[in-house]
């Protein structure tokens, strides 16, 4: 009986092998792509059982195939199954991706022979499954124009293509078939959003950037770089480039990877990317790039929370929320505001400029609804920002280093005039009495009166008193930062921790969660369906990375894939200390945001180099953003000149910024030139639910709209080509093309429940239906304010952080309450003077109290996130954005970055509007065009961060930059010494008229 049973799989295996030959022949006859693919190789491929007891070999010759039963003595390559059961299960229809991955992970299916052949055969097998599924895509709208779709950081788009060239890129206007929009009923009116996916302004610049004169169209080698001779590292950033072939470029890079690994070990390879990539769950850096890098091993560059600093290092200790990096919960706030908000305070909050990062202009219409309802607005920001200009209201303009002084004075008014929620403070918070004593000066003898704060902030005491009283008398929303619940320029300063935690305190005193007492600026939490599953990009795509992405939570099960692990993950370099790691050979980091599962994770430190690990000898850099985005960024320029780093490769779309410092440059293509799939504004992870800043959830198939320009390639393909040279192509690709992975992602999501693959390929997008009434989010913290357990539990805090497990009682803080005096900080260091367990007024270390420095550099520079470019992604590139009047100014044929300054400051320096000026301090100098304005107080100047153009007029790293990288001026010093953080908005400078070098 047993013997007979064993025979059945063997017989089926025999039949399957025979069937395979027939299948290949039939499909090759039917489909030209299979016919052409089969012509690529003449070879003999053996399929067999591991014990050689059974097999069949296939001979491919000029596109023809024949096969023979048995074991060939010298096949070119072999596919080997552990036993017949495994073979049958994987060769017959009906098996799942999980079956296949499971067999691969447990070595029940292996391969032998050159990867070139095994990969080819694996892809052929994949083609048999997918053939016919990829033929028709996009909509033919006549006149030779195809309408495709794509996903961008600016929003989802239609891409019109004619003759292989992009004609136009537009927002997606929804049709009648697309799901209905939501409607909110409030104050006797109905509010429903326009049927269009708006774009951030820079979204309209994409075509111009695709066809940019700065596009890298073929691989480049620095002219004086010779991998087998003189490397001339000192000339990085100075020497020019020559065109080389892909083969040469890939051979050099793969060769250097092998050499470095052999000589120093994988930890000698440093790798980093920008904070954001061109969109797509496969092309994203947390997907293709991570998968490849894990396979070769590397030292990881760990990003700090550079847009969230004060919330992460400060607020988190007082209200929890580690898994959102200290952000407040804004759930349900759009509906709540429309119903109840009487006044909205935008505090360091300019959503009309920052667009919620990925939010298009979706929040704008909602804010205008509030304006039409007569809601009062207050804007607290040193700059009369664009939200203030659009909405109007009261502008309160503190000097940039005001920290928590204004908040302290507001608390003083509330305490002394009995205007706060005493019951809430008593039952929902801890440590208030200590705070009260501090505010009233019982601790340090200083009463934190509005008059006291006036000296620190320059805001008239009377205005603060009026604000405090108005706030107490109205249902007031506090919109902090661009999201309304986190971010904001004030959190990226030496005083950022104190500012952010004072926001928590003020909301606690108002009764956070009570009706009309909420966080939010209408930017996030529209009533969309939060349960529809489509993975965010931090969910790891096909990275296989279970440790450093969110893959393990959903996608590892839903889209089975081979896991990848970087064995050298212990060695990390904080992104803001990459120069120190290279130039000084050591550095120390705090707070691994990849591990933000508890509050305490933040106290972890990591040192470079780790004992026994190699130092950095090679740098695999993606893109060129850091000179524009990181503090004191001339450091990065200098680091590139170090001979310690023997090899620098940069994979980039454009020749800009740091790309010009590489030895080899690999030209990547844009998201319009490759296949991918993504949901608009869906990062997942600590940005979970961020799609709710859109009025409609939109998932797009990212059609390959045009062929890659020049010789550029998709990131997927570049890594694939390198992997081929490192015998990693099979592991890297699992035999799949980009489009195969797109299909697998589609299958893993909830999309197939609503739309067929065929229709999705054609139409290219899907609008997720809004939830029924009664299924929308309740207002955040309502449960908390009303003394219930959390009935709106979302991912995080984790079960362990609840005292009663999954009954969800309280916040993540040790007490479960809002803590004025943070238990976690008391445990960490109760005597910390930089960050005491309770927020205190701590003057900025680069601000108006530093009088020596102030005499030399009397102007305080703020560098908010730029309005017309998403970090460096849309700036420069010889593109149309340069002509936006408030972005760059054309003077004598050159597009200069803008610095904005008050009339009085300009006049005192003889500077007129449109003059070229030199802005400088000890750290560097930048040549800018002056914009003279009343939108800033005397003594404060404003210039956006994130210039993509670094263009030193002399020696790179030590001469004035006319490209506009104002971050060459900002301090590298962290907010507090025990943090890896940026205080970019604490920067003193001088400005003078530029009269030429």
């Amino acid at each position: 009986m047993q013997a007979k049973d064993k025979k059945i799989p063997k017989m089926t295996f025999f039949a399957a092998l025979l069937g395979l030959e027939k299948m290949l022949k039939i499909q090759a006859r039917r489909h030209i792509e299979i016919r052409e693919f089969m012509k690529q190789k003449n070879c003999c491929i053996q399929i067999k059982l591991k014990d050689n007891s059974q097999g069949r070999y296939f001979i491919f010759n000029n596109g023809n195939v024949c096969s023979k039963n048995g074991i060939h003595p010298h096949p070119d390559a072999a596919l080997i199954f552990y036993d017949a059961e495994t073979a049958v299960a994987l060769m017959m229809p009906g098996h799942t991706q999980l079956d296949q991955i499971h067999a691969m992970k447990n070595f029940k299916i292996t391969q032998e022979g050159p990867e070139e052949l095994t990969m080819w055969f694996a892809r052929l097998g994949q083609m048999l499954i997918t053939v016919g599924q990829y033929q028709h895509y996009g909509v033919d709208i006549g006149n030779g124009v195809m309408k495709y779709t794509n996903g961008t950081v600016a929003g989802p788009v239609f891409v019109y293509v004619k003759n292989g060239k992009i004609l136009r890129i537009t927002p997606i206007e929804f049709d009648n078939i697309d799901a209905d929009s939501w409607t909110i009923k409030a104050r006797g009116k109905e509010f429903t959003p326009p049927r269009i996916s708006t774009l951030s302004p820079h979204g309209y610049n994409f075509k111009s950037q695709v066809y940019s004169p700065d596009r890298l169209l073929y691989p480049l080698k620095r002219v004086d770089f010779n991998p087998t001779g003189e490397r001339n590292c000192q000339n990085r950033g100075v020497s020019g480039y020559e065109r080389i072939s892909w083969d040469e470029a890939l051979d050099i890079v793969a060769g250097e990877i092998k050499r470095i690994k052999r000589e120093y070990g994988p930890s000698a390879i440093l790798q980093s990317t920008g904070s954001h990539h061109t969109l797509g769950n496969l092309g994203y850096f947390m997907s293709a790039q991570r998968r490849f890098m894990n396979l070769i091993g590397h030292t990881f560059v760990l990003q700090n929370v550079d847009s969230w600093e004060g919330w992460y290092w400060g607020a988190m200790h007082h209200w929890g929320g580690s898994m959102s990096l200290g952000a407040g919960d804004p759930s349900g706030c759009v509906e709540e505001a429309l119903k109840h908000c009487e006044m909205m305070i935008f505090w360091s909050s300019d959503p009309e400029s920052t667009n919620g990062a990925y939010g298009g202009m979706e929040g704008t219409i909602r804010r205008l609804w509030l304006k039409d309802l007569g809601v009062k607005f207050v804007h607290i920001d040193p700059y009369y920002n664009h939200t203030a200009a659009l909405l109007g209201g009261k502008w309160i303009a503190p000097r940039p280093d005001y920290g928590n002084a204004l908040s302290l004075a507001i608390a003083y008014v509330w305490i002394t005039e009995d205007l706060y929620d005493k019951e809430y403070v008593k039952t929902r918070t801890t440590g208030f009495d200590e705070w009260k004593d501090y505010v009233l000066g019982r601790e340090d003898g200083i009463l934190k009166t509005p008059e006291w704060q006036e000296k620190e902030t320059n805001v008239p005491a009377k205005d603060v008193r009026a604000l405090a009283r108005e706030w107490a008398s109205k249902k007031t929303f506090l919109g902090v930062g661009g999201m309304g619940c986190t971010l904001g320029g004030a959190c990226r300063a030496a005083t950022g921790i104190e500012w952010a935690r004072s926001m928590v305190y003020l909301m606690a005193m108002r009764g956070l969660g009570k009706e009309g007492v909420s966080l939010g600026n209408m930017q996030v939490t529209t009533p969309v369906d939060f349960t529809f599953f489509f993975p965010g990009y931090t969910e790891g795509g096909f990275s296989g990375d279970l440790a450093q992405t969110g893959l393990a939570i959903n996608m590892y099960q839903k889209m089975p894939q081979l896991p990848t692990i970087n064995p050298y993950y212990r060695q990390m370099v904080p992104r803001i200390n990459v120069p120190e790691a290279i130039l000084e050979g050591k550095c120390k980091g705090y707070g691994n945001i990849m591990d933000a599962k508890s509050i305490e994770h933040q106290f972890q430190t990591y040192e470079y180099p780790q004992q026994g690990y190699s130092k950095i000898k090679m740098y695999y850099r993606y893109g060129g953003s850091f000179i524009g985005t990181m503090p004191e960024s001339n450091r990065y320029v200098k680091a590139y000149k170090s001979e310690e780093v023997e090899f620098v490769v940069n994979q980039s779309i454009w020749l800009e910024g740091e790309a010009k410092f590489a030895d080899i440059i690999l030209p990547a293509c844009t998201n319009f030139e490759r296949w991918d799939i993504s949901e608009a504004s869906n990062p997942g992870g600590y940005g979970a639910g961020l799609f709710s800043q859109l009025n409609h959830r939109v998932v797009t198939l990212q059609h390959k709209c045009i062929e890659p320009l020049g010789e550029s390639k998709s990131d997927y393909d570049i890594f694939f080509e390198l992997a081929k040279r490192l015998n990693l192509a099979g592991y890297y690709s699992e035999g799949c093309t980009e489009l195969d992975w797109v299909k697998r992602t589609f299958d893993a999501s909830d999309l197939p429940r609503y739309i067929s693959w065929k229709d999705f390929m054609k139409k290219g997008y899907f609008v997720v239906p809004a939830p029924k009434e009664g299924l929308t989010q309740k207002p955040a913290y309502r449960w908390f304010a009303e003394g219930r357990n959390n009935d709106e539990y979302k991912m995080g805090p984790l079960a362990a952080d609840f005292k009663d497990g999954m009954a969800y009682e309280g916040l993540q803080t040790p007490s479960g309450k809002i803590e004025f005096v943070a238990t976690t900080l008391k445990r960490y260091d109760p005597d910390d003077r930089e960050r005491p367990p309770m927020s205190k007024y701590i003057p900025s270390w680069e601000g108006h109290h530093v009088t020596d420095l102030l005499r030399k550099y009397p102007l305080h520079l703020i560098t908010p996130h730029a309005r017309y470019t998403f970090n460096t992604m849309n700036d420069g590139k010889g593109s149309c954005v340069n002509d936006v009047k408030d972005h760059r100014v054309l003077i004598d044929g050159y597009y200069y970055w803008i610095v904005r300054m008050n009339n009085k400051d300009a006049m005192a320096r003889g500077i007129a509007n449109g003059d070229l000026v030199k802005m400088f301090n000890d750290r560097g100098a930048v040549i800018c065009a002056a914009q003279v304005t009343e939108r800033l107080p005397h003594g404060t100047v404003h210039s956006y961060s994130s210039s993509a153009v670094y263009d030193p007029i002399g020696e790179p790293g030590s001469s004035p930059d006319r490209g506009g990288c104002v971050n060459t001026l900002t301090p590298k010093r962290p907010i507090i010494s025990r943090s890896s953080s940026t205080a970019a908005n604490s920067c003193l400078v001088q400005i003078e008229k530029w009269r030429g070098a």
Partner: protein
Amino acid sequence: MRKWNMIIDVRNCEDCNSCFLACKDEHVDNDFPPYSSSQPKHIHRWINIMRKERGQFPLIDVAYLPRPCMHCDDAPCIKHAADNAVYKRDDGIVVIDPIRSKGQRNLVQSCPYGAIWWNAEKGIPQKCVFCAHLLDDGWQKSRCVQACPTGALRMLHVEDSEMEKIIQDERLEVLYPEYQTKPRVYYKNLYRYMKCFIAGSVASAHDGIEDCVNGEPVVLYHEGKKLQEARTDCFGDFKFDDLDPDSGLYTIRIGFEKRAVVKEVNLEQSCSIEKILI
């Protein structure tokens, strides 16, 4: 005959430049004969957003004025063009023929609104065509209007009589009516850009402590007449808007009879009066 009109609400323009960049996206590198030849990537502003800051720190506001071609019914460019190089379509759109206009640089100066740009490379004058190639293809609006996230830009395809009614109802104006060119582009809340304000903050002091004065009546007089009335808000702020620039002496009377404070302003541009103590 229905004709195209554009309405621009200055109140809702925030200088996001979506219109400007969408226009570039549509027209740079794209020829749409016979409507238009491609727009140069740089310099040209077929929709030109002007900025106006009003007042002095911290009582200021900012307005933006997008200026496309006005598609005038009595267009000077048509009159100045040789060889019928500029013509008006039945639907109101003014088109510069990209072939017949070659070399006619004088057309740039003919437009009092500065809406015509010279393309040196091609030797032709160019301007906004309301994306007529798209409208003729069934689009309901131009690219700039589609891109506008605030509804500041609208396009209407209506009979002139209907438009007359909308002009009345929405109190629309044309820019610089003194040019007398009968534009088909209309503005709403144009005062935010063209007119001036007088603003101030009212406070009182008791025992050295200053407080904003809420609800205080403020009256504006001009040439002996009471012009506007307001009350201070919770920050003590008041603002009189829609005043003509360089319009002479204004008197502001703050507070009730007995304790009233009087301020005089010679209005040139918008004026923010420093703190007024009562």
